[in-house]
């Protein structure tokens, strides 16, 4: 993967901060609804965080999130990974994730959630560039000597490789192809 810019977020960043509940009125399965969600990714961050969405391009200034533990806690809304993916944020790296958010990322294939148990966000700054090596399960932030080591997906690897739950279920013959 080519270098991408990182957004650093604190521990317990919840789904209300990713996309506030009022925008769950947008349908995450239509082109229009998905675009509306993407333009509002991280609209719930408190004051003090940098602008995430470029007003001109409607895309995120950042492509990768480095977060503290328990990223995506709170509501079960799948609108959160949809909003992130549509904004161009395709990877989140955190020491741990909230269960439903993690699962939503995997089964929808919208965002790749990478678990890096030793990640300490204090070592990084928003705007730095990162290169992710999925083969080696590691990532390197420019200017930082220590690589970020991420865990393999284990039992979920098949779903991740397939691109989502439905793709996996079709490939393994569990459901019929349309």
């Amino acid at each position, binding site marked *: 993967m080519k270098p991408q810019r990182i957004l650093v977020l604190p521990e*317990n960043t*919840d789904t*209300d*901060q990713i996309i*506030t*509940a*009022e925008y*769950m*009125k*947008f*349908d*995450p*399965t*239509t082109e229009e*609804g998905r675009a509306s969600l993407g333009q509002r990714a991280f609209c*719930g*961050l*408190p*004051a003090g965080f940098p602008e995430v969405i470029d007003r001109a391009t409607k895309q995120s200034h950042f492509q990768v999130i480095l977060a503290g*533990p*328990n990223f995506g*806690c*709170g*509501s*079960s*809304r*799948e*609108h959160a*990974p*949809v909003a992130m993916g549509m904004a161009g944020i395709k990877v989140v790296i955190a020491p*741990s994730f*909230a*269960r*439903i958010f993690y*699962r*939503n990322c995997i*089964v*929808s294939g919208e965002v790749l959630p990478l678990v890096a148990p030793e990640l300490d966000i204090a070592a990084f700054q928003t705007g730095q560039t990162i290169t992710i090596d999925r083969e080696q399960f590691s990532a390197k932030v420019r200017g930082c000597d220590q690589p970020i080591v991420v865990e393999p997906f284990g*039992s979920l690897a098949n779903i991740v490789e397939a691109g*989502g*739950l*439905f793709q996996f*279920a079709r490939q393994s013959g*569990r*459901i019929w192809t*349309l």
Partner: protein
Amino acid sequence: MKPMTIAEKILAAKAGVDHVKPGEFHWCKVDRLFTHDPCAPGVLGVFEREFGPEAPVFDPDRFALIPDHFVFTTDPLANRNLDQMRAFAKAKGITLFFDPYSPNYKGVCHIALVEAGMVKPGELLVGTDSHTVTAGAFGCFAIGVGNTDAAYALGTGELLLKVPASIQVKVEGVLADGVGCKDVILFLLGQLGVSGATYQAIEFCGSTIEAMSAEDRMTLCNMTTEAGAKAGLMAPNQASLDYLAGWSGDFGPLIQADDAAVYSRVIEINAASLAPMVAKPYSPDNVVPVGDCVGQPVSQVYLGSCTGGKIEDFLAFAQIVQGKQVQVPTYAVPATTAVAEALIRHKIGGVSLHEILVDAGVRLSPYPGCGACCGGPVDTFGRVNEPVPVVSTTNRNFPGRMGHHRAEVYLASPATAAATALTGAITDPRNDSETKEPS
């Protein structure tokens, strides 16, 4: 037979195997499924995309469509979502659809599910809401999922699930006057933190849990998701079975944990030692005894939601405000239409709860729903639209949760919320000596 927890026993039964252990993945049979209005377009959209618009649902009698979040609003997109639910219910013959503009309307999904006979001990209930765990109060393995998982279950009646380890929480003894179930769960959240139970089930037991009413047990299980839990579970007690029987008849064998079941952690709570608790902004685990924030001025009080808008929550609130006047704008929203009706039926000293609240100056909504708790459409009754401190009986206080980004939400029990409404500052409900027995 190897010993198992309640969660392990239910998942083993649904996976069709004798034994499961934490960490294993199993395809499990989903007994019942629901979605609500904010997630219905996503669930139905994925379902139609993947299975085709003509595909049948796995079981039209075991799938509920429950509008409750963005209802009674003029927002056109929110109303379009309701239209989509109506059309799907009609096309697939789904009778468990509770249209807000019809006599079938119920209200907040987690309470409506019980009233609709969708909650049964020993079953696997799946819903597109993190507070689906509420049904664990009845020994049901109930979990929240996203749109994709729900759409998969809607088409196939099954779901790939990871077996969670279980944390055992033993609560023993009698709660002091003025201390309620909400204080127990807030205390536990303070102990566990917002990720202390991630990927795990919380299994409650002990004499306090045994003696608890069904609704109080629902309050406990409801907020286990605030610790990251996959499910909150209790072996049903007689009160919870009687409560279920009042709504729906039959249910299968009741499941208990084995004595030698293995838990990842055991937490013991002495109920008698608990004070009323408050979760300060901006996290449900930022918990202190009420004494630590007594006197904090508030601009608004909210009574409602799946965790704080049941009839017993209204009863606890009414006992404290009866014959007095609230000093700050106080909004109350019954969880369901059944709760709204019960407000007229239940009386304290011959006066209905409805009358007590209205006489005390509480702004009581006739329209059940949960839009204010999650900061729904801006015209939602009780939504926090100003950057002000609020005491609320709801379950989350992350930034912006109830509307305004800089609103400061303090989570508390209905009793603490009532005592606070009477003074305009956070108040210990145990200082109120004039609580009266319900008649």
